[in-house]
């Protein structure tokens, strides 16, 4: 089962803008991705409500997984989302 762990770099944790950017990116992936803290409950990464409910703070290590889905697409999806979480999304200028 493909998984990736990553530490949340955003100063505010996975709330507000960072959460929105993450959920949008997850929704754009071809495979569904789940998010959890440690052995906690799985949250659908495409659901802003589920992601917010995890209350992920700055510095928390989270696990991304694609469940039964495997293959290059699953690995690329995990790679892209892990990369996003490892950056401080609060610090990025709102260039859009």
């Amino acid at each position, binding site marked *: 089962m493909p998984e990736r762990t990553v530490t949340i770099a955003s100063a505010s944790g996975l*709330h*507000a*803008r960072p959460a*929105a950017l993450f*959920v*949008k990116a997850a*929704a754009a992936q071809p495979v569904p991705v789940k998010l959890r803290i440690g052995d906690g409950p799985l949250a*659908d990464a*495409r*659901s*802003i*409500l*589920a992601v*917010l*409910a995890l*209350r992920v703070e700055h510095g928390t290590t989270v696990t991304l997984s694609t469940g039964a889905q495997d293959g290059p697409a699953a690995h690329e999806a995990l790679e892209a989302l892990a990369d996003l979480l490892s950056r401080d999304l609060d610090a990025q200028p*709102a260039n859009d």
Partner: protein
Amino acid sequence: MIDRLQGLGVSAGAAAGPALRMGRVPQLPSPRSVTDPPTEQAAAREALDRVGHELAERAARATDPAARAILEAQALIAKDPLLAESCDSAVAAGLDAAHAVHAAFTQQADGLRAAGGYLGERAADLEDLRDRAVAWLLGEPMPGIPDPGHPFVLIADDLAPADTAALDPTRVLALVTVRGGPTSHTAILARALGLPAVVACREALAIEDGTLIHIDGETGTVTLNATPDCAASAANATNAATRPAATARFTGPGRTADGHRVPLLLNIGSADDLPADAATNVEGIEGVGLLRTELLFLGRHDAPSLDEQREAYVRVFRALPGRRVVLRTLDAGADKPLPFLSLADEPNPALGIRGLRTSRTRPDVLDTQLEAVALAAQADDADADVWVMAPMVSTVQEAADFAARVRAHGLSKVGAMVEVPSAALRAGQILEHVDFLSIGTNDLGQYTMAADRQCGELADLLDPWQPALLDLIALCARAGKVAGNPVGVCGEAASDPLLACVLVGLGVTSLSMSRAAVSRVGVRLRQHTLNDCTSLADAALAAPDAAAARAAARAAVRAAVRALAIHDS
């Protein structure tokens, strides 16, 4: 459908554009029994999609980054798969689409609220989205101020103060409401923004979204299916005559066509309401006709200190060197409650302890205020011509007592507001004790007609064109003329350009209004001589009712314009 609706014009100017209704929070009808769950599920999902799509579109158009972030986050919530799944299960459990959507959102919102903190604050967002989705399913207009991305005429049942925060005056061309009266929140807001407005238009919500309508904020007429030509000319007229940009055309000072001076003053709550160029624009900003001091007191548990008040008044006095500033002492009461006055609940606040009457129980509050005004008037560079007046004076004795107290503080210009018919009837005797009168037409109308200002059903009685109200104003103006004292009007009546001319014709010596109304009134006043204004006033006074008074004044204007045209040719 009939193509013309009649309401009450409360903010002059014409405008045309597509109508859009502001919906109220939808009320769920009784549940329907579900025969085809997949259809209900599809409808619920489509409602979520529509709401999400609309928010995403608005986000894409938003220019303010903060506003865009909020809209994007809301769009994301509407598209949340959890909600869609939750709707599916609710339908599977037997609910119709509207009830399913309602249940799904409410469940999520309750969960967030229970979590508290940042998540709890998102609960209101969910409820807002829920109301939008349910409104769509019920075929009702979306709650909240519409944001279609183009200018439109806003149609609403009524506007609450909270709605107005979201109102973008560059997008809203005009306002039409079912309820409200000449002094309702909608009317005051419209005049402050310079938007044409019609209130008390009972059929307004029957206008379909997108219908091209033309509104005349003077006559109160709403024309449906306006032709594009008519719409274009109205849009031009609106831009030229009623938008704040038109202020540039009118540079002041206020006078009639034949040079009779009528100072056009501003109604303000604090120095913040003054334009930035107030200190130097002596012709355009002739002074303040109503400084509402209670804004300093509202929402406070204790009275503001002497120093705090002095500071606030100094800021206004410094901003207007050499010009008149008419300060109204605290106008509070059960209708505008101030906790530190601790007034008892009254069954009929409009007829209770309010205005000057509060000094019966709390004379110290008035004394502190007068001391603060006196100190402010003596401050360095505070060179305004300071006048002080009391609200809600009802008897000659009250006026005399107030005058004595003000003069004891070394302030020389004392006035009484005329809001109670008894004060208008006794204007001559009141002027034996005070230096000026200022007529508050909103309250004078309410008390003359025995019609609550808050009661939209009685909007016709509250029409400032009511001849009985004009009679009382004429009485005050005559008393002022005999005594040689100024008599101004600071109520909303002064901001209706045609009525302003009538007031001048009745003998009123100054007009005070919100800033947005000044250019419109100023331009109009310069089109008529004092004689014209007197004819308008005579025509209005001779009319049997408000509508006839307005029509008579308008006819007199047309006659005057025709006479002028013949004279010129």
